[in-house]
């Protein structure tokens, strides 16, 4: 392959591109193809039977349901956090701002055992929730709590730069033309940040669907009730049911690719507002 811009004098195009494609192939592309080939050894009837068995469909419902719920929670609270961090000044703001990235940096296993402990019946937060009849640990609600934890930075970090780059002149103009504060927020600010909120929602959702480490400790892992799809893949593997594990993984992978496509389109849409 040759660079299309002919007058480029910089060296190393062939070498760096060649190495990029080589490394990408051996680490990512060939192993992912192995998954697809393994699935292809199943007959169509077997594949359908595996991915529509009650235990598998129950895990899909649970995983996607909890991920959508958690993404909604994050879309609302993440936007509020981004707004507070960008618009208001309060002591400790910088510290809070850096700690928002904690779910990116904290290993998922640590997040998992910690959330399970804090939200268990006699944990720091669980002991106040339990008397109210709210059981979090070892229920589907616990799965959502873990997904909210890992998904939060995605929404905050997508909405924050858009809010930062909004020009104050637009709000000033709205105020000058007689809009009250509420009208300015609803008609001027919200439409501008909506693409970013939706992108953050999609990113948080995609992360929640695939998440494993932070969830399994708090989930309880009862088949049909609180068993997420990634755990089911591991269970099948431990029973040496490679074909079953592969079939479920293929469905999840197809959904991830679809999400990736949607997110790419959303990000293009968001960029119209930031550029």
């Amino acid at each position: 392959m040759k660079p299309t811009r002919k007058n480029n004098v910089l060296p190393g195009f062939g070498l760096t591109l060649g190495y990029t494609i080589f490394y990408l192939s051996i680490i990512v592309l060939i192993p992912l193809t192995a998954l697809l080939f393994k699935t292809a050894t199943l007959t169509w009837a077997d594949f359908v039977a595996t991915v529509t068995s009650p235990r598998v469909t129950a895990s899909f419902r649970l995983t996607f349901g909890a991920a959508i719920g958690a993404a909604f929670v994050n879309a609302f609270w993440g936007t509020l956090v981004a707004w507070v961090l960008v618009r208001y000044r309060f002591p400790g703001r910088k510290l809070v701002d850096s700690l928002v990235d904690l779910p990116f940096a904290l290993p998922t296993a640590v997040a998992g055992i910690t959330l399970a402990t804090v939200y268990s019946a006699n944990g720091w937060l669980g002991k106040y929730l339990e008397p109210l009849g709210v059981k979090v640990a070892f229920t589907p609600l616990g799965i959502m709590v873990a997904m909210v934890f890992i998904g939060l930075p995605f929404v905050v970090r997508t909405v924050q730069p858009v809010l930062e780059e909004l020009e104050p002149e637009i709000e000033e103009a709205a105020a000058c033309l007689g809009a009250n504060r509420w009208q300015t927020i609803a008609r001027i600010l919200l439409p501008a940040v909506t693409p970013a909120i939706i992108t953050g929602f999609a990113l948080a959702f995609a992360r929640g669907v695939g998440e494993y480490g932070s969830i399994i400790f708090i989930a309880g892992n009862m088949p049909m009730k609180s068993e997420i799809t990634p755990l089911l893949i591991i269970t099948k593997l431990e029973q040496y049911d490679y074909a079953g594990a592969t079939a479920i993984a293929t469905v999840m992978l197809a959904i991830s690719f679809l999400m990736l496509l949607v997110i790419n389109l959303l990000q293009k849409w968001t960029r119209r507002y930031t550029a």
Partner: protein
Amino acid sequence: MANITTLHNKSTDQARRQLSEPFWVRWLLISSALLFLSLFLFVPLASVFSEALAKGVETYLAALQEADTWSAIKLTLLVAVISVPLNLFFGLAASWAIAKFEFRGKSLLITLIDLPFSVSPVISGLIYVLMFGLQGWIGPWLQDHDIKIIFAAPGIILATIFVTFPFVARELIPLMESQGCEEEEAALTLGASGLQTFFRVTFPNIKWGILYGVILCNARAMGEFGAVSVVSGHIRGMTNTVPLQVEILYNEYNYAAAFAVATLLALLALVTLVIKSWVEFRMKQQEIRS
């Protein structure tokens, strides 16, 4: 003069009132955001350290001195020492090719580089089991030659490379694209060799970006759980990384020890966040200067 100042102050006050929310609304929004963050981030973070020290400092230190914990730490360091430099080298090559040249299929290539981020960690482990496991593509051949990849360190390293694959590249590509090629072209015109141009001209411009990508890559490499748990086989003292050791101790109801080991990873996360904030600060400064 004084009158003008007070007049000015009055009108900016009024403007501020129309361009911001009343005091009580601001106060309500800030405290509810902080309450939400406390429930989901701050309280859990504090509880890691509190649980670890619940049975006293001696139990805490004893848990860290376990032989199995030490071998887990060694394996985790080994994994990071191999996977981070490989992904750094890849990130440099990929961002040079993508940011400095135009070619067909570029956006497809960028999407493919980002791919590992959208694959579930469990699937990231599974694909290597399907390639190198006993029932996999080259598993039987590997067994005949007595090479162990799955349930051994090489498998753990491969899975870690996969999940941390995009970190450096995705940080450097936009950074190098925004800087263009003029400085490099000037250096070449003045007679510098390709490598000289890279180390003397490109590198100083992207060094903070490199550091940023590397610390995030390292945090994930040392903390990865899902993908590693599929390929590791959980052999105590042999193929357990630190996160897997936390899981084992926790599942044995040895909570104090589990949280003691977990504090190591929590400290790693906090150090990562501190370095990250510092690098962001330096990057902003560099931007202002140029």
